[in-house]
């Protein structure tokens, strides 16, 4: 048997794009395969070896009862569990269901409950188990993924940027789309990592990497977004791929409230009436709708 560290890649509700990032490391893929033993990666290999694993990369969010049980097992099978991408770290685009009109949504979803098993919520992995490191993005960035793998192999904690998109945007030499073109942009509150790609293509950042550290959400929504778009538009802008990330969730809900279209969190996610986001994750407060 191989003595290399064992790598597993697991998928929950997601688009496959983040695990595909590993296969998109065309120049590095074969070197990675020499440095780790790829023990369980169904998208890439038919050899599925049983646990334990040293490094488990987890893509996707928790949206079914079965997956709630599967992630607990996977955690106990893994030395390091790393979540990759907005679905795994914040519930993903499918977390929009967390704010949907509950009764309406349930009627739509469960008209055929005998066929479909699905929770009324989409929650990040860290709401269910301890996560050792989170890699943000929709999709994740390839060089950050390689940095995480290399760091773990070298035995130190991965270092990824916690600055906001504006800094790499300036370094890239892009003219500010807010100042020059009066376009709304989430760059000031969004964590860097993508390379500030959207402003370089003449459009505002739409928040793929989720909230940066200590974002000024009030300043962003009231001074930067609302002069350029109405409240509902501003709310939608904040609530797309990281809608359930705490800061985006709270700011988005405030804007929906101001727009006269309140979108409260699903009751199983709110710790008390009026809460915008659970104060702490991992409380196991979800209930099933099955």
């Amino acid at each position, binding site marked *: 048997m191989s003595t290399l560290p064992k790598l597993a890649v697991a*998928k*929950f*509700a*997601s*688009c*496959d*794009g*983040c695990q*595909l*990032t590993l*296969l*998109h490391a*065309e*120049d590095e*893929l*074969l070197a990675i*395969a020499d440095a780790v033993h*790829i023990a369980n*990666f*169904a*998208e*890439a*290999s*038919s*050899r*599925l070896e049983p646990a334990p694993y040293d490094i488990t990369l987890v893509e996707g969010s928790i*949206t*079914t009862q079965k997956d709630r049980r599967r992630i607990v097992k996977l955690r106990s099978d893994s030395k390091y569990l790393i979540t990759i991408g907005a679905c795994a770290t914040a519930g*993903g*685009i*499918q977390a*929009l*269901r967390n704010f*949907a009109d509950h009764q309406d*949504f349930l009627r*739509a*979803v469960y*008209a*055929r409950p*005998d*066929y*479909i098993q*699905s929770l009324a919520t*989409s929650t990040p992995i860290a709401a269910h188990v301890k996560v050792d490191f989170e890699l943000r993005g*929709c*999709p994740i960035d390839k060089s950050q993924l390689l940095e995480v793998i290399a760091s773990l192999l070298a035995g130190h904690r991965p270092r990824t940027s916690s600055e906001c998109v504006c800094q790499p945007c300036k370094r890239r030499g892009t003219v500010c789309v807010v100042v020059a073109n009066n376009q709304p942009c989430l760059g000031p509150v969004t964590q860097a990592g*993508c*390379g500030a*790609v*959207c402003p*370089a*293509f*003449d*459009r505002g950042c*739409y928040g*793929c990497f989720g909230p940066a550290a200590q974002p000024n959400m009030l300043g962003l929504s009231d001074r930067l977004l609302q002069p350029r778009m109405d409240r509902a*538009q501003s709310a*939608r802008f904040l609530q*797309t*791929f990281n809608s359930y990330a705490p800061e985006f969730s709270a700011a988005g809900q405030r804007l929906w409230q101001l727009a006269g279209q309140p979108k409260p969190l699903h009751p199983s996610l709110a710790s008390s009436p009026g809460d915008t986001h659970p104060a702490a994750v991992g409380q196991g407060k979800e209930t099933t709708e099955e």
Partner: protein
Amino acid sequence: MPDDRRDRQRSIRVPVLTRVEGEGALLVQLRDNVLTDVQLAIYEPPRFFESFLRGRSFDEVADITARICGICPVAYQMTAVQALEAALGIEIAAPIDALRRLIYCGEWIESHSLHVHLLHAPDFFGCDSGIELAKRFPAEVNRGLRMKKFGNRLLEVLGGRAIHPVNIAVGGFYRLPRREELHSLIPDFQWGLQAAIETARWVAGLPFPDFEIPYDFVALSHPDQYAITAGQVTTSDGMRIPMTDYEQHFAEVQVPHSTSLQSRRMPQGTEYFLGPLARLNLNCEQLSPAAARLRDEVGWRRPCGNPYRGIVARAIEMVHAFEEALGLLQSYRPLGKPRSEFEVRAGEGMAVTEAPRGLIFHRYQVSSDGLIEFAKIVPPTSQNQAQIEADLRQLLPTIVHKPDKAIATECEQLIRSYDPCISCATHFLSLTIQRQ
């Protein structure tokens, strides 16, 4: 299962289909070595995209639908913007249309080279993965990875990034690439064209199982080009309809064992086949010159109803995509506006394009303030799913005498030849429910 039947009844399960995108399983049931049931079970959790799209603005749809699939986001983006342009009455300038074909070529190259080298080719050599295959065929696999990289590079230059590009907009693009950005790719694409030719020669010589089905192929066909972004919906029995008539001839049904809907041709209710093999069977005269030469060199004959030869069709399409992309790169001049100007209005529109895995359909209703009122998306894999099950019913009686593990492997290989994208196929349940 009752005890007294245990000796006669046999179930073969493939709990996790591997080297496919997304989560699926296979269940085969035999009684006295006679096939009683086969189910391609898709257990990928539904994500309800059509629900989320309702109430979103028309200009958010391309970014949102991209997230259905990380392997073919451009197919979703391009179909979405074209359907919305139909709804809003937007005309697209010819240079924008050319750039759209160009970025679509990038996605075909990326997706096809992934499937050919890392997912499908290992089956022909008894390897578990492309990485294992690379130990035996380093030159071939490295060549494949490099082609994939250049497909991704095109997506990055024109789309901003390879997965979930950011530059595709209703009306065109957010920003036109600078001439030197695209021209810098030319040497790589010249190399890629030759590499794809060598790959096609390599895969054409693989040993293919003797398995031939008289498929009902369905693909877009276009009078002037190998259809990618536009055309008429065409079938092997000679039907040729405008894309707006798609829903009159193809319908989705829900089956209990799958979170994906399955499509059938109507009114007869039969399965049909989409993807590179269908396109090549229906449109092989319109391949680019190098791809056409290669088609003849490797002895491609139609009709070809051997699904395992999908790998050859994919390789020939890679030659086509590299050659077409090369021409578009060489002739590119950044002239005009990045996107058409238009007024938002209420309307309904639909579009069909050719995703790497086959025909994809979108239809949207837009309100007068530009919000989505209704969305319908039919991805390729949910359309191929019924055909895959039908193929398995043909294959299984010929292999039931084999051990369970061998049967499971052969079934999985047949499924894999379709390049199924289960993530794509899964997100459409809410729609059925809305109709009821």
